[in-house]
């Protein structure tokens, strides 16, 4: 980047600054650069900034000087008079006219704020220039006021241009500070500021570039404009070459959320495999969330399944028949499902209890009860809630990808076939393993482990054949596969996320930076 061959990419402003520095062996300040180049201060500062980054120019010195300048009020005082000066003039001229003035009379003129007047009168009295006469009248003693004289001289000096504070004698410095703008008092004539003055030198690299600088760089143009194109005048110019390796400016753009985009690919994958989407309610009854799935109301299987209950209303109006009676029957004694049932007093009221949907399978249960087409394949990507402490591996609500397959050809081997398909389609896995598993609503149940090309061996999902205790009471007589996929870990690795809560982060920067890495 710094080699002579790259002088083409220097901006015309940079070239002018380089030339100016090259002519003078001494370091030049910003101000001097402005004088030597005919550039505006902002252009010099821009060009110096770029040159510093490119290490063609280095900072030679940095000195901070305190300057005094006039404020708008100071300019008024300089042109007219400062409060003590005005008071003295007014009192003297009215004395010549034979009248004497009181403080109230001065205030009545509305010339200055009462507080300012009192301060000025205080100073003049202290100096013995003014004294109070009978009836509160102000009288000039004829003495000269050092303050008025000094202020007048300072106003005139600073009016010519700002000056370093230390160019004034110490007593004047104190006066300037006294009459300078401060926090809480902005109505003062002087302003005292620190100015940092930087001086720059060419670096060795910069020196080497000097002989290679383009002539007439000032006539180069950087931007093709509609005008240049319209009249063809672009032919008269040469175009400056850019440093194309600089990082481009960032853009604020519209984009899908990366995790949602991941779930989008899942849903497109599933529809392409012939699955139809199901949707359900966030709030469900215990009936559809658990009872219909043959999870007994009393059993420890329910304890592994802690749910959020709804505060108001606590219960649904009713559970549709004949499903309530049929499910109740299957829990009690198996009904017509060929099962012995759980053998307990099923509580129809508890079935109505409202919960936040704790498993996506509730959506499948509802589909089974709606006389679904056979053969049929369904899926849902359902938001679920678990009563868990939220931490790096537990989110308050999360998505479950689950579904069902209904058909007379469904059996344990077609179940394994479907899982094998999921392994290839969802995780590009060539190696898979099946393990016995337990879910309250399936038998046989199986866990699918796959060897993901990036993640290695992982559990991809769980599945099984719905128990007859689930299907028969809901009116389905063909075998049904129930399946669920655990894709969050895959999503997290793909998005480079360690904490599950970050899938739903409220940090916009994190959302903008999130991207799929494979």
């Amino acid at each position, binding site marked *: 980047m710094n080699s002579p061959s790259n002088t083409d990419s220097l901006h015309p402003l940079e070239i002018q600054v380089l030339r100016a520095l090259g002519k003078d062996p001494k370091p030049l300040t910003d101000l001097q650069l402005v004088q030597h180049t005919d550039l505006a201060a902002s252009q010099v500062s821009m060009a110096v900034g770029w040159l510093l980054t490119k290490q063609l120019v280095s900072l030679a010195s940095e000195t901070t000087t305190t300057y005094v300048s006039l404020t708008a009020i100071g300019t008024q005082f300089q042109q007219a008079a400062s409060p003590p000066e005005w008071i003295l003039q007014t009192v003297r001229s009215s004395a010549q006219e034979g009248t004497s003035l009181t403080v109230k009379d001065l205030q009545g003129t509305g010339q200055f704020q009462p507080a300012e007047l009192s301060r000025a009168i205080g100073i003049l009295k202290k100096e013995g220039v003014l004294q109070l006469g009978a009836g509160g009248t102000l009288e000039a003693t004829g003495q000269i006021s050092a303050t008025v004289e000094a202020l007048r001289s300072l106003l005139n000096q600073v009016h010519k241009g700002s000056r370093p504070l230390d160019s004034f004698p110490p007593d004047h410095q104190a006066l300037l500070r006294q009459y300078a703008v401060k926090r809480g008092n902005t109505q003062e004539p002087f302003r005292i500021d620190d100015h940092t003055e930087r001086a720059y030198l060419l670096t060795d690299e910069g020196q080497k570039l000097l002989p290679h600088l383009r002539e007439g760089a000032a006539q180069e143009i950087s931007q093709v404009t509609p005008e240049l194109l319209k009249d063809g005048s672009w032919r008269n110019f040469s175009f400056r070459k850019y440093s194309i390796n600089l990082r481009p400016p960032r853009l*604020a753009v*519209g*984009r*899908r*959320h990366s995790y*949602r985009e991941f779930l989008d690919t899942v*849903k497109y994958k599933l529809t392409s495999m012939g*699955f*139809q*989407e199901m*949707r359900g*309610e*966030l*709030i469900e009854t215990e009936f559809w969330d658990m009872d219909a799935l043959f999870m007994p109301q009393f*059993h*420890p299987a329910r304890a592994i399944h802690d749910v959020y209950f*709804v*505060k*108001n209303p606590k*219960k*649904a*109006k*009713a559970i549709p028949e004949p499903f309530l009676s049929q499910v109740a029957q299957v829990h009690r004694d198996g009904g017509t*499902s*060929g*099962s012995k*049932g*759980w053998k307990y007093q099923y509580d129809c009221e508890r079935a109505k209890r409202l919960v*936040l949907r704790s498993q996506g399978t509730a959506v499948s249960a509802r589909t089974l009860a709606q006389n679904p*087409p056979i*053969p049929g394949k369904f899926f849902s990507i359902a938001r679920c809630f678990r*009563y*868990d402490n*939220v931490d790096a591996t537990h989110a*308050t*609500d999360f998505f479950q990808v689950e579904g069902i397959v209904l058909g007379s*050809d469904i*059996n*344990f*081997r*077609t179940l*394994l*076939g479907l*899982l*094998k398909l999921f392994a290839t389609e969802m995780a590009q896995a060539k190696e898979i393993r099946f*393990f*016995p598993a*337990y879910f*309250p609503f399936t*038998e*046989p149940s*199986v866990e699918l482990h796959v060897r993901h090309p990036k993640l290695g061996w992982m559990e991809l999902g769980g599945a099984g054949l719905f128990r007859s*205790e689930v299907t028969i009471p809901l009116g389905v007589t063909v*075998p049904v596969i129930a399946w669920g996929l655990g894709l969050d870990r895959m999503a997290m690795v793909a998005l480079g996320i360690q904490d599950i809560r970050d899938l*739903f982060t*409220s*940090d*916009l*920067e994190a*959302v903008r930076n999130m991207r799929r890495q494979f």
Partner: protein
Amino acid sequence: MPTISIFQEDFSHLVGRRASMSDIEQWMPYVKGEVKDVSRDTGEVRVELQDTNRPDLWCVEGIARQIGSVLNKGMTPYPFFSHKGPAKRRIQVVQGMEAVRPYVAACVSLGYAMTQEGLDQCIQTQEKLADAFGRKRETVSIGLYRFSSIVFPVTYGLVKPDEIRFTPLGFEEKMTPQEILTVHPKGLEYGSILAGCERLPLLWDSDGQVLSFPPIINSRELGEVQLGDTDLLVEVTGTDLSMVVLALNIFASNLADRGAAIESVDIAYPYETEFGTTVKTPLDMNHSQHISLDAIEKALGMSLGSESIQEALTAYGYQVKTTRQSVSVKLPPFRNDLMHVMDVAEDVAITRGYDSFSPIMPQSFTVGSLSKEEQTSDRIRDLLVGFGFQEIFSNIMASHQELVERMRIADTEHARLVEVDNVMSQTYACLRPSILPCLLRVEALSPRAFYPHLLFEVGEIAQLDLEADLGSRTTLSIAAISANPGANFSEIHSYLDLLMYYMAWPYELEAVTHPSFLEGRVGQIRCHGHAVGYIGEFHPEVLEAWQINMPTSGFEFEIRKSEP
């Protein structure tokens, strides 16, 4: 799902062959177990057991028994389940127990000198059974006693809370049951099980010595089993007789596996139970039942033949008799999880190994499709992304503070929402009735992300609706906000207008007031005469509440209501 510790040495001894760590891992599918952690120094293996219906597998003895059975292609029946005639010992149940804790089962274990390993495993099993299977001792609790000091018959009866004193485990001095309930850690932990009982359950022997105060605590004299003890009494009490008996059967089988001789105890009830008034325990509750071979083969998708099914089930521990078309099977007495023929089918598959079944692709043709709601959502999302909006994806649970107070809608019609009863954290106490608070949360947390901020989310919200069957409705909503120094009504209106144009959804704005927005800069969005949402500049008080220093405007409307 219980997780237990087993030890390689102990396991090898029980399974009857040297088991390497990889053997143990490889055999886990037979018990639906998963090795969670292995310590090679101590030989400890942490195993998670999945099957909540197989409490017999929640202990090293049960795991070894099941695996051993598969490896040895069958199981030798335990003789003590077929003892006939009156038992040598008896527990007399007293009238009135039926209202408190009706059932008890017991057995005597002789000749196994308790080792440290055996005792640790006994305690672990006792805890897992009482905790997960017995619902924290409510339905089942278990006690072990030094048999030699007990004078039979034992009485299972009731006492007044301050009628008797004995020394409970863990304490030095004698206490009344009432004192135990108010002072002893176990009394505090489990006392609620006996809430409302005027008289409390107690086991005592013929010499008046207290065995225990079930389900709370054993007595220290009789109920503190020590290393080297050779003879034990095992007792289970509870509220469900089958569960009580099953727990005892499991315990008895475990001790038998360690070399003990098990002797029965007769339980005499003054009231009727499903097994009569005198129940000899341990008790085999299972019966032989016919199952259809055809159903098993159909479910597994393979013609296995009756012989190989019989072979598999025998190996898994069943007692099997086959004829040509039907199989008659009986589970071992420490299991009672057979409800349906599919349960048998799964055991056949497990014994044969899932990998021995070759997968077949389902052949049926079905048409895949997205729901109408999803398709509409996707169109809206595509449009807003094209407009330059960043999609946001939020949790649906949020705090009342965020959803109501910060939105300046407390005590208004807009503040109706679905709240959780058993709140775990106030941060997640409600379901969002609107998405805008979620977007404002992003704005509030992201003042350093470079501007402009154009954010949107399409997603589910929950609306309280007492007329609806479920007391609420889940519906899809679209919300968008613009936060930048020049954000105002006109800018966000342009985006809404463009969105509605491309969706071909005619809409109107009606000037209204809404506490979340500045008066005179808020409109109700109406489609075909129905209110569907709001658009406006957020009220500075709303922005202040969120600590947002950037002018912000936004809109939100319900998708379903807006469609023509």
